[in-house]
């Protein structure tokens, strides 16, 4: 394990060859932004928007086009080239990226822009000291202060950060920079203590066991109507979710010249599944809310063997009408027990 003084962090950021994203103050909260020479904020618990937008931007050009008489000229957007360093993401968001990897980097088709960025990304995870009241990562088997498989795991000991590499490229990066000293034994045990204590601060729990199997049996149930009733279909939950990956493809054009881009979409929107001709397989918010919960808790596990939720708590923290996936899971559990 290595250690670095926090005052030396600007040296670290400057030494990283690529674009370095750090958590910065953004309005009343925090968000990830390219490091611009300022010191990073130490007092954030988590960012409002997850770092998924660095790898899967909210809008992204795919190609530009030009109508030339009868012909169409298509010019693919140039892909990202620079290495990306995401410094200080939390273990839940690290897991969120691993789940996006399952969608975008596996299966018969790879998502080229995402994969290209991701292949060249370093994830430097900072362990949480204390969870928020809305955090429930431990329900999904996550640890608030350790992310298995992260390039780096880091712990904040006040004056210094402790760093442990978790991948070969993470170790190579750490060994290649002369900014670190070996951590002392005392520091290592402090980090271990922090890790153990952080776990105890996660008090919100969601009943995960058997939920997938239970939901498989309850696609038609009056509970869906009840759960969906207060939803405003604003889509905030999906935009702030570290694992939501739905997108739309759209074009802008003027006089036969324009570009095609993709942007985040939300299964909470009424026209998301609306077909030409008027048929809508998910016509009311009952079906749409059901789809969102089932995607996280049933479909994702069926397809990838993992839950599509990491317990970051953003959806419940930011819902204007206090929809709460943990409460839904508890209700579902009750219903399924009957």
């Amino acid at each position, binding site marked *: 394990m290595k250690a670095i003084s926090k005052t030396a962090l600007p040296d670290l950021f400057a030494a990283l060859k690529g674009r370095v994203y750090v958590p910065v103050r953004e309005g009343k909260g925090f968000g990830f932004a390219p490091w611009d020479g300022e010191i990073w904020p130490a007092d954030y618990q988590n960012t409002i928007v997850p770092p998924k937008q660095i790898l899967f931007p909210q809008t992204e050009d*795919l*190609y530009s*086009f030009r*109508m030339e008489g*009868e*012909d*169409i000229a*298509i010019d*693919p957007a140039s*892909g990202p080239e620079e290495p990306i360093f995401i410094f200080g993401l939390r273990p839940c968001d690290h897991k969120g990226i691993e789940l996006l990897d399952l*969608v*975008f980097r596996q*299966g*018969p*088709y*790879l*998502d*080229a*822009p995402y*994969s*290209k960025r991701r292949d060249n990304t370093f994830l430097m995870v900072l362990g949480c000291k204390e969870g928020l009241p809305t955090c429930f990562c431990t329900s999904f088997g996550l640890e608030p202060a350790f992310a298995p498989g992260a390039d780096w795991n880091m712990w904040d000991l006040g004056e210094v950060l402790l760093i442990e590499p978790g991948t070969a490229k993470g170790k190579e990066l750490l060994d290649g920079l002369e900014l670190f000293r070996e951590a002392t034994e005392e520091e290592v045990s402090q980090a271990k203590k922090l890790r153990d204590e952080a776990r105890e601060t996660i008090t919100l729990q969601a009943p995960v066991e058997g939920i997938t199997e239970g939901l498989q049996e309850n*696609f*038609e149930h009056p509970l869906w109507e009840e759960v969906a009733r207060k939803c405003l279909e604003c889509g905030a939950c999906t935009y702030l979710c570290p694992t939501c*990956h*739905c*997108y*739309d*493809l759209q*074009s802008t*054009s003027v006089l*036969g010249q*324009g570009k*095609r881009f*993709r942007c985040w*979409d939300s*299964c909470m929107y009424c026209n*998301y*599944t*609306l*077909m*030409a*001709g008027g*048929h809508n*397989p*998910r016509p009311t918010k009952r*079906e749409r809310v059901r*789809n969102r919960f*089932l*995607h996280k808790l*049933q*479909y*994702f596990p*069926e*397809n990838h063997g993992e839950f599509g939720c990491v317990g970051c708590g953003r959806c419940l923290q930011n819902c204007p009408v206090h929809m709460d996936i943990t409460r839904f899971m508890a209700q579902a559990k009750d219903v399924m027990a009957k």
Partner: protein
Amino acid sequence: MTNELIPQVAKVVAVRRETSDVKTFTFRGEGGLPFAYMPGQCAMVSLPSVGEAMFSITSSPTQEDMEFSIKRVGLVTEALHKLTLGQAVGVRGPYGNGFPLEMLQGKDLLFIGGGIGLAPLRSLINYCLDNRADYGGVDIIYGARSPQDLVFTDELFERWPKVEGVQVQTTVDVGDETWQGPVGVVTKLLEELNPDPQGRIAITCGPPIMIKFVLRTLAKLGYQDDQIITTLEKRMKCGVGKCGRCNIGGKYICVDGPVFTVAQLRDLPDEL
């Protein structure tokens, strides 16, 4: 790594009017066929300044060219219907699983189509007729609202009935003074024909209401769920199982479908 979401450019080399709101387009890429495909697979067709939509490929891979039969129902199809010879479109694919050819080999085949739903079936019908020795008897039942709404009339009335072992029956919901064939829904013809389920696979595509009644009739005639194949459609954007919207349960119609047996559909939630 190529970006699957970027289309290649193809040209319209033929346009055939099928009905007042259906046209069949032939597209050719720079090197001929835009890409190889199998019957039942789909492709994204786009006019970049308007939009992009998923269509089943109606030609058979045994043919030289790639054809799409497109019904005018929305923004993209409205613009596509204005295409003229020589104009360029974007096309990408193929997408989806296609028909389970191995399962069909050596079997008698029963095709039941309604309206524009004959488009994906036509790909498989022509594929089977071009590989005639691999399949048993072929029965085709097709229905449309009126004689004016029949698509692929050349094949229905001329080409297919001439092939040995092929029977074609066409019906319309409402006839007119020119129509001398049967009048009524396809299920009526199906019951009259009563094809023996033994060694036969039924493949159906059409409007949801037709499919519903066809499945009911097939069950009545003794067909098992794993003997019946249908194809589904949903709104799609990516075609590669990532943009999210075409799922039924955990299955994405663009990748896991569009072709399913009824037995497979029984395992999925009812969200058609």
